[in-house]
């Protein structure tokens, strides 16, 4: 029983043989994260800033826009863009489809978090910055947004963790990231050890983030903001 377990999950021989392609996959995963996190943040910041508009002609379409992308599971959105759009002659390819899906989906979540952050900054901050002669855009970037980000930092980190984990769905559209390579190796060797190795890689990279979050969240609870 134990031998079976070691043989099918912790087979060092197979992991070593799969190492080069697993490594390539890991690099692609990190690259993917480095692309989609800024994309999501940019979209989220745009949503958060637009949601402060007073006109209902801005607020309503914005609410429909974000709720739509929050109601759709990210994988559904990704498949739609990857497999659906080519019927219209628009072929984004794996990278394009993943980038656009993450831009739309994770942007809606970042938008919610950043909006809460902007709301948490007292209006007096903006007024004081304006009184000091800062232009509105400068006051926003130098005074309001830094405080907003700090106030919702645990949620931003938590969301970013989810985004990095979510990059694994790119394997479904054959983007050669970590999970995709692990599955390739698994299907060639008929052995799950490469997938275990991939899981271990995710865990090693993301565990410190989980620990950090746990501490940030506990502090939030302790200070009555939980």
């Amino acid at each position, binding site marked *: 029983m134990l031998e079976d377990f070691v043989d099918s*999950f912790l087979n060092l021989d197979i992991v070593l043989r799969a190492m080069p392609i697993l490594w390539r996959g890991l690099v692609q995963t990190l690259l993917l994260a480095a692309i989609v996190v800024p994309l999501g943040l940019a979209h989220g910041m745009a949503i958060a800033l637009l949601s402060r508009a007073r006109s209902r002609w801005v607020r309503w379409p914005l609410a429909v826009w974000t709720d739509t992308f929050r109601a759709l599971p990210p*994988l*559904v959105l990704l498949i739609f863009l990857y*497999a659906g759009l080519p019927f*219209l002659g628009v072929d984004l390819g794996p990278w394009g489809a993943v980038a656009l899906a993450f831009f739309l989906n994770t942007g809606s979540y970042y938008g919610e978090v950043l909006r809460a952050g902007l709301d948490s900054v007292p209006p007096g901050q903006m007024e004081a910055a304006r009184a000091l002669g800062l232009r509105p855009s400068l006051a926003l970037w130098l005074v309001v947004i830094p405080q907003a980000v700090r106030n919702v930092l645990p949620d931003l980190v938590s969301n970013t963790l989810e985004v990095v984990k979510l990059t694994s769905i790119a394997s479904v559209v054959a983007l050669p990231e970590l999970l995709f390579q692990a599955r390739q190796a698994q299907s060639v060797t008929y052995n799950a050890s490469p*997938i275990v190795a991939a*899981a271990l890689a995710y865990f090693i990279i993301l*565990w410190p983030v989980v620990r950090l979050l746990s501490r940030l969240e506990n502090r939030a609870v302790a200070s009555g903001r939980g």
Partner: protein
Amino acid sequence: MGGLDGFAITFLNGKVMAEWLPKIVEGFALTVALAALIVVAGLALGLGLAVLRAFGLRVLNWAIIFFVDLFRALPPLVIIVLLYFGLPGMGISLSGFWATWLSLTLVLAAFSEEIFWAGITATPRGQWDAGKALGLRFLPILFRIVLPQAVRMVVPPLTNRTIAITKGTALASVVGVAEILGAAQSAMAFSGNPSPLTLGAIAYALLFLPVVGAGRWIERRVAIPGR
């Protein structure tokens, strides 16, 4: 043929939609069943672990914290793929449905344990002291005084997290489950038209928009005023 007509025939093809609607409805039922089983088992396990953690047994708590960290750090799809493709090597074969159920249940349990636990620790110390002063023992204080307050306190983050994780049921399509996305994808392959995918997206919107709304309603109903 104008661009808009082309779009309609491609993505909103009535004939294709009518033909594949029954399959999507079946997928819808499967998604709802999977999601319900995940929510029930995941929240129960998460609450159970949080209660165990309240006993303050050091080694047990380390094990619980490791379990929580592990399933918060691993991508759900990695867990699903691992269980689905890995376990047969040990002579245990899980169907795609149950592999997804088990994976997402463990993930929800980990997240909800953390949330329940935050609620328990955020309940003021005085509640425990007052319970003791009334002559109650540990378990009655925990179950009748602390938990009712703790659970109400954490309803908003808990609903958000639960909704996010149940959306992961779409991942089951990767391991061959004909839930909404799986059914829509095979219908798209058979018909050579992406309209079933549109139907699938509509099905998810029908399922999750009310859930999101209900989540907001529950938050308002259950939330303790002034918190």
